[in-house]
């Protein structure tokens, strides 16, 4: 018998036993993974997945021929599997478990084949072989789509992080505040510098406060980026107040021989704000007689 004939046979067997296979697969998946992901996986959903998956499997084997045997991401079975693993990636199910989820069907079908074809070992061998080849491809496809989906999520996240990361706040007339949070890399540095310079020109920022309380590591790279921003702002005519350098940060900067000698540095943001306000001729005062709890 040829591989094509085995495929046809396999398709018929799957089609005949689809309900049994579906139930067995669902139970198997629930048993092995249900406890690991409580609230994420539920029986109905797996059942629905299993239904489409098994239908497509049987359709695939029915139309099987040498040329079309390679699974493409665009084929119907391919789409079902890659959607499934993409979905899993977004929900935080581990790649190993996703592969297990897809491969579990091999076990269920093989079991069924053994009971059905127990009296013709040749046919059994052929069918298992065809099934094995397909499942190997599906596993690779699962892995591939899982990674792609994960990467997409990561790209989206870093994009959104970039967008919300560096606001320039108009703190008072002619006083701007630039709170830096998180790791400063070249892209972010350029972005906040651009925004800061633009804001300085738009609001005529006489003083700009750069707050680095939220910057976890202060190394040469970060210092250089901030230094460039400071120089550019000073060229526009804005004075710079740096705030929120940690003791460790100060130690590192000094060891690197960076002194920020052309800026005023204050330990806390409030001190920096007071300093900046003084530069524009204002100060914060206590109101006599106002309620103080």
């Amino acid at each position, binding site marked *: 018998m040829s591989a094509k004939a085995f495929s046809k046979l396999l398709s018929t067997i799957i089609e005949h036993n689809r309900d049994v296979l579906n139930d067995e697969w669902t139970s198997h998946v629930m048993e092995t993974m249900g406890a690991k992901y409580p609230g994420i996986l539920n029986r109905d959903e797996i059942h629905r997945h299993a239904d489409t998956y098994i239908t497509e499997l049987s359709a695939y084997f029915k139309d099987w021929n040498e040329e079309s045997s390679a699974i493409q991401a665009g084929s119907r079975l391919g789409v079902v599997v890659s959607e499934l693993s993409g979905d899993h990636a977004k929900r935080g199910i581990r790649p190993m478990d996703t592969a297990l989820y897809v491969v579990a069907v091999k076990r269920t079908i093989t079991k069924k084949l053994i009971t059905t074809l127990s009296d013709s070992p040749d046919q059994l061998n052929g069918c298992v072989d065809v099934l094995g080849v397909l499942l190997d491809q599906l596993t690779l496809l699962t892995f591939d789509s899982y990674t792609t989906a994960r990467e997409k999520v990561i790209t989206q996240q870093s994009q959104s992080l970039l967008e919300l990361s560096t606001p320039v706040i108009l703190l008072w007339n002619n006083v701007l505040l630039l709170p830096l949070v998180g790791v400063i890399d070249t892209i972010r540095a350029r972005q906040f510098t651009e925004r800061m310079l633009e804001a300085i020109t738009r609001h005529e920022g006489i003083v700009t406060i750069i707050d680095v309380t939220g910057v976890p590591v202060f190394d040469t790279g970060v210092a250089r980026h901030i230094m460039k921003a400071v120089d550019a702002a000073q060229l526009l005519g804005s004075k710079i107040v740096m705030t929120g350098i940690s*003791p460790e940060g100060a130690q590192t*900067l000094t060891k690197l021989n960076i*002194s920020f000698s052309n800026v005023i540095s204050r330990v806390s943001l*409030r*001190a*920096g704000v007071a300093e900046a306000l*003084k530069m524009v001729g204002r*100060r914060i005062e206590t109101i006599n007689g106002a309620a103080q709890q």
Partner: protein
Amino acid sequence: MRVPIIRLGRILLISIQTDLTDNDALCLQSDLIKKISDTEAQGVAIDITALDVVDSYMARIINDTVCMAQLLGADVVISGVQPFVALSMVEMGSDLIRAECVFNLEQAMKRLEIRMSTRGDICLKRDNYVQ
């Protein structure tokens, strides 16, 4: 020996009474910057009247401390540099101590008061004392 750091309002006062080992000096440096950051001190007075010898390492540590303190927004004044110390400093390289130096502690405090009075964040601490 751990050098005590005394807080006088907005000023931190350090008086070095004996020769420090390299380790003690480093320890003092990290203690001081931590204290500046905790108390938001605006001035630091370092009195080295009792030091007869300041080697290049000690001078460097003093210099680094001054830089760090400035990054944390505190002005530093050094008082009581002995003639012999001053001479050896100049021999070693004149910019070894970049901070302002005065005769004695009293002048250091006056100097700091003057410098702090020009600062914008002086009102902060005043508010704190009212409470």
